[in-house]
C-alpha cells in the first residue's frame, strides 16, 4: 500500500511541510524553507565548481594559459567582501555586464523591433472576413498599445489623440486578463504534480 522507500517518505514530508504555509505560517514550514535555501545554495556551488572545471580548467590543462586571466577575474569577483579592495570586483563585473548587454541588445533590435514592425506593416485585407477583422484588431492593438507608452510627448494623452492610448490601455487590459487566466492554469498545473506524487508514489492509491 504505502511506499516503504525512505526517499519517497522524505519527499512526501517536505511536500506537506512546504504546503502547510498555505494554511498558516508554522515551524514545519520554516524548517522546509531553510532546508530549501540551504540545498539550493549547495547545488549552486557544485554546479559552479563543475563548470569552472569543464569550461575553465580544461582549457588551462590543454595549454591555453590565457585562461589564467579568467581565473584571476573570477577570484576578483569575491573582492567585493573586502573592506578596502572591494573595487577590484568591478573588473569582472564590467566584463560580465559588457558581455551580457552586447549579446542581448544586438539581437533585440532585430527580434523585438524590426521583425515585429515588419509583421505589423502587412496588408490588412485577408482572404476572408474573419481574417480581415483579426488583422484590423491586431493592427489597432499594436499601434494603440505602443501609443499608451509614449510619455515624452504629453499631447498624445490629450484631446482627440488621447483616444489612442486609451484604447491601447483597454487592449493591454484585455491581454493581461488572458495572461491572468493562463497564470491560474500554471499554478494549478504545477501543484497537481505534487498531488499526483503524494497519491501515486507515496500513498500508492492511484496508478
Amino acid at each position: 500500500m504505502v511506499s516503504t522507500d525512505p526517499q519517497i517518505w522524505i519527499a512526501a514530508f517536505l511536500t506537506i511541510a512546504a504546503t502547510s504555509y498555505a494554511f498558516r505560517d508554522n515551524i514545519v514550514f520554516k524548517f522546509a524553507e531553510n532546508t530549501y535555501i540551504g540545498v539550493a545554495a549547495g547545488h549552486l556551488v557544485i554546479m559552479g565548481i563543475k563548470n569552472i572545471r569543464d569550461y575553465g580548467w580544461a582549457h588551462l590543462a590543454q595549454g591555453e594559459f590565457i585562461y589564467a586571466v579568467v581565473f584571476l577575474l573570477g577570484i576578483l569577483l569575491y573582492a567585493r567582501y573586502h573592506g578596502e579592495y572591494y573595487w577590484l570586483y568591478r573588473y569582472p563585473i564590467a566584463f560580465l555586464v559588457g558581455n551580457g548587454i552586447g549579446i542581448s541588445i544586438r539581437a533585440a533590435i532585430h527580434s523585438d523591433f524590426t521583425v515585429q514592425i515588419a509583421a505589423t506593416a502587412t496588408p490588412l485585407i485577408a482572404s476572408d472576413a474573419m481574417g480581415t477583422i483579426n488583422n484590423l484588431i491586431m493592427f489597432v492593438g499594436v499601434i494603440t498599445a505602443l501609443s499608451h507608452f509614449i510619455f515624452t510627448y504629453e499631447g498624445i494623452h490629450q484631446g482627440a489623440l488621447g483616444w489612442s492610448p486609451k484604447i491601447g490601455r483597454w487592449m493591454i487590459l484585455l491581454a493581461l486578463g488572458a495572461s491572468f487566466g493562463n497564470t491560474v492554469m500554471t499554478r494549478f498545473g504545477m501543484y497537481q504534480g505534487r498531488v499526483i506524487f503524494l497519491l501515486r508514489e507515496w500513498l500508492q492509491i492511484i496508478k
Partner: protein
Amino acid sequence: MVDYRRDIPLAITFIIGVIAVLDYYTTFESISNTFTVIKNWGVVLQAFALGLGAINLLRVHGRRISEKRDGWYFSVWLLAMMFIFIIVGLMTGKYEAGATYSWLYNAIYLPLGATMYSSLAFYMAYGSYKVLRARNFEAGLLFITAVLVIIGNTPIFPAMFPSLFSLREWIFGPIVGGAYRGIRIGVGMGAVVLGIRTLVGLETGYLGRR
C-alpha cells in the same frame, strides 16, 4: 587623470559590448575569434559568480548564529544542508551525477522546489475571490478575458461546448498578439536604450558603491 576604480571598468564594459555587437553585424574573422574567446570566458566567469550566493548566505546566517538572534537554529540547519550538498557533490568527483547526490536531490531539493513554486495555487484561488472583480469598465475588461480564458483552459467546458475553446484560441490570436506585440516593441526599445546607456557609461549602477 584616469580613475582606475571606475574608468577602467567602464572602458572594459564598452569594449566588450562593442565587440559583441560587431560580431553580430560584421563578418571579420578577427572580431569573430575575439568574441569566441570572450563568450567562453563569460561562461567561466558566470560559473565563478555562482558561489557568491553561498558566500552571502554564510555571512548573513553566520552572523545570525554568532549573535544568537531569533531562529538561529534554523540558520545552523540551513548552513548544514548547504555543506552536506557541497561535500556529497565533491566527495565522489562525479558532482551532480553521483548516485548519493542524485538521491539527496530527489528526496530533498526536487519536492521542495516543486512545492514552493506551486503552492501559489492556493493564493491564486484566494486572489480570484478577493481581487478579480469587475469594479468598473477597465477592471471589467481584464475580468472578461480572464474568465473566458479560464473557461477555455478548463477541459470540462470545451468538452461540453467546443466553441469555448475556439473563443480562447481567438483571444490569444489578435487580442493578445496585438497588445503584446506593442508591449514587446516598447520593451525591446527600452532594453536597447538602457543597454546603450550602460555601454557608453551613462548607467553605472552595476559598479556599486563609490
